[in-house]
C-alpha cells in the first residue's frame, strides 16, 4: 500500500495501464512534457516516450475524433480533456460518434476509450472551470459515466474503465484532487463498474452522493450523528450503468432519501435517481425524496461557497426528511 492523493492515483493507474498494454495511449493538451495542468500525467512522457504520451493541438474535437479513430483501429486511447467545461467542442464526436459506433456497426467497431476530465467547483474557477456535466453524458446511451471520490476509487475505477470494452467518461473531482488522501494498493487492481457501495451504514436516512460531495455527505453524517440521526451513505461511483439494487436496498431500510450533486437541479442526475426510487421503492418511503444540488444558474465565482451543495445543506435536508 502507498499513501497518495487522487492525482497520484490517476498517475499510478495510467502508469500501470501504459506499462501493461502497448496499445494504451495518453494524450491531450499539455499532458506531455508539462504533465498536465493538474500534473496528473507527470513523468509519464519521460517513462513511455512521446509516442505513447503526447501533447495535442488545442482542439477538443480533434482530441476525441483522433481517439475514436485509434479505437476503431483497435487501440486503447485514454485522452484527457483539460477541464470538463472544455469538453463541449467535442460533444458532437462524443455523442454522435463515440457513443454510437458499436450500435451502428453491429458491434464491428467499438470505442474502448476512457476520457479523463476534471470536473466540479470549489477551486475559484468561475463558470468555465467548475461545471459538472455528468447528466449530459448519462443521458446518452452508449456512454458509461464513472465518478470516483478518493484515491482508492480513482485508481480502481480508472483501471476498470481502461479495461472496459465501451467508452467511459471518467469525471475526476478536482476540488479534492490533493485534499483527498488515502492508502492505495501499489499494483494493478480494479473496482467493478456498475456497482454502488455503501460508504457508511446507518438506519434513519440514506444520503446518495458521488465525487467531491461524498466528503460533504460524510461531514453531514457526522453532524447528524451528534444529533442522534443515523445516516447511511451510498457512493454511486458509476452513474451508467446504475446499480439500482444497492440504492433501493438502502432506501427500503431507511425509508428516507437525500440525493446530492453539484450539477444544476433541473434534469440533473438526481432526477433520474429519484424516479428510479419512486418507481421501485415508493411504498418504503416515509418522506418525500429530497435533493441537495447546484442551483439552476451558471456556476458563480465570488459566491461559489454559497452556491455549492455542502455538508450543512445536506444536514438540513436530512433533518427535514427525518422530521417529516
Amino acid at each position, binding site marked *: 500500500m502507498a499513501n497518495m492523493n487522487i492525482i497520484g492515483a490517476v498517475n499510478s493507474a495510467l502508469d500501470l495501464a501504459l506499462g501493461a498494454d502497448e496499445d494504451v495511449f495518453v494524450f491531450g493538451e499539455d499532458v506531455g512534457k508539462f504533465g498536465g495542468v493538474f500534473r496528473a500525467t507527470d513523468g509519464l512522457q519521460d517513462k513511455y516516450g512521446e509516442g505513447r504520451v503526447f*501533447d495535442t493541438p488545442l482542439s477538443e474535437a480533434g482530441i476525441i475524433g483522433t481517439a475514436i479513430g485509434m479505437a476503431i483501429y483497435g487501440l486503447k486511447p485514454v485522452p484527457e480533456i483539460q477541464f470538463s467545461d472544455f469538453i463541449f*467542442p467535442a460533444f458532437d464526436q462524443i455523442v454522435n460518434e463515440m457513443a454510437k459506433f458499436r450500435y451502428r456497426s453491429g458491434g464491428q467497431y467499438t470505442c474502448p476509450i476512457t476520457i479523463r476530465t476534471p470536473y466540479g467547483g470549489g477551486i475559484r474557477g468561475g463558470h*468555465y472551470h467548475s461545471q459538472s456535466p455528468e447528466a449530459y453524458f448519462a443521458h446518452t446511451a452508449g456512454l458509461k459515466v464513472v465518478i470516483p471520490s478518493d484515491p482508492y476509487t480513482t485508481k480502481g475505477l480508472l483501471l476498470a474503465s481502461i479495461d472496459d470494452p465501451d467508452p467511459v467518461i471518467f469525471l475526476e473531482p478536482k476540488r479534492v484532487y490533493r485534499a483527498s488522501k488515502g492508502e492505495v494498493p501499489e499494483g494493478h487492481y480494479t473496482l467493478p463498474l456498475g456497482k454502488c457501495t455503501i460508504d457508511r451504514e446507518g438506519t434513519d436516512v440514506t444520503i446518495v452522493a458521488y465525487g467531491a460531495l461524498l466528503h460533504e455527505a460524510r461531514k453531514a453524517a457526522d453532524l447528524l450523528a451528534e444529533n442522534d440521526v443515523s445516516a447511511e451513505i451510498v457512493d454511486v461511483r458509476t452513474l451508467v450503468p446504475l446499480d439500482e439494487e444497492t440504492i433501493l436496498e438502502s432506501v427500503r431500510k431507511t425509508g428516507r432519501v437525500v440525493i446530492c450533486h453539484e450539477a444544476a437541479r433541473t434534469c440533473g442526475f438526481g432526477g433520474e435517481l429519484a424516479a428510479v426510487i419512486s418507481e421501485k421503492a415508493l411504498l418504503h418511503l416515509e418522506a418525500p425524496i429530497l435533493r441537495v444540488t447546484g442551483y439552476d444558474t451558471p456556476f458563480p*465565482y465570488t459566491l461559489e461557497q*454559497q*452556491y455549492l451543495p455542502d455538508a450543512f445543506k445536506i444536514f438540513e435536508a436530512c433533518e427535514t426528511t427525518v422530521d417529516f
Partner: protein
Amino acid sequence: MSHPNPTYPAQDVCPPEDLPTEDLIRVLDPQGNLVGEPLLDDEAILELHRVMVRQRLIDDRMLTLQRQGRIGFYGACVGQEAAVFGSASALEPTDWIVPALREAGALLYRGFTLREYFNQLLGNNADITKGRQMPCHPPGHDYHYVTMSSVIANQIPQACGLALAGKLKQDGRVTMCFMGDGATSEGDFHTGLNVATVQKLPVVWICQNNQWSISTPVGRQSAARSMAAKAKGYGIPGLRVDGNDLLAVHKIASEAAARARAGEGPTLIECLTWRLGAHTTSDDPTRYRDEDVTKRWWELDPLGRTRRYLIAKGLWSDEQEQAQQDELDAEIRAVWTEVEEIPAPPLKAIFEDVYAEMTPQQTEQWESLERNMKWSDAKGLVRKQH
C-alpha cells in the same frame, strides 16, 4: 522527435535572435530606430506609450496582489502590450472589439475605469457582473467590447455575426477579433475565417502569436509556416507583424480596418511576440520552457522599444518616464484602496441575469438558500470562505 516546421526548427519556438527578417513587418527596429513610415504622430505615440506603461503597472500590481491572496486569479498581458494597444488604437470608438483572453487593456483604453476593472477583479457587489466571472473577464457593452468567455476560440465565429449585422445595417463599423496562437487549432477558427471571407465581412482578425498555449509551443500547435500564412487558404490577406512594435501593429491594423470599412473584406494579422510571464497565476513556466529564451525576449520588450524611440527623438526622458510611472502607480494604488473593502454581492446575485426574469424554480432555490444560511447560522455552523 524532429518537427516539420520550417519557422521553429529545433525548439518549436522562435527565439528573438532567429526572428525572420523578410516577412516580418516593422516600423521600429528593436533598438527603437525607424525602419518604416509610422502612421501615428508624436503626440499619439506618447499617449499610447503611457497606456502601455499603465497596463504593465496594473499587471505588475495585480500579480503581486494575487500572490498575497487579495485577488483569486490573474492573467496578464505582459509583453503583448504593443499588440493589444497598437491594434485597438487603429479602431473608431464604435468599432467592435471581440477579445480573446489578454485584451482587457483595450477596454480600459476605451474608457472603462480602473475602479470598474478592479471591482470585476474582486468580484464584489460593485462589479457590474456581480462577481459571476473569474477576474480579467470584464464586461464592456458601453464600449462595444464583448464580454469574454474562457473557452478558447468561441468568440471567432461570433465576430462574424457582429460584422454581418453591421454590414446589413450599413453602419460602417468594423469588428476586430482577437485570438491566441492556440485558438487557431480549434474548429471555430476555420469556421469563423471561412464565413467572414465568403460573406466579405468587415473583420480584422488579430492573432497574438505569443508562441505558447500554456506549455505547448507554437511549433507543436501548428505546422504552418506562420499564423499569417493560414490566410492564404481562405483567400484573404495575411500579414505577419512584429508584435512588439507598437507602430507596426498600429499601421497594419489601421490598413486592415480601412480595407474592412471599404467593403474589401477581412484581413488576418499575426502579431509575433512572446509570452513574457506565466500563462496565468495558476501556471509555472519554469516547468516546461527554457526561461533563458524568455530573458532574451525581455530585451525586445515593446515598452522599451517605444521609450527608446521617444527618447532618441527628444520627446521623452528617463526622468519623465519615472515621474509618469510614479503617478500612474499612485493612481492604481489609490483606486485599489477605495474598492478593496467593498463587500461581496448578495445571494440573490447568483440567480439574477440567468434569464430576463427569474423562473419559479430559481425563486424557490433562492429562498431555500436564504433559509439554509439562516438555519446554519442559528445552529452556529460556520461555513469556510475562501
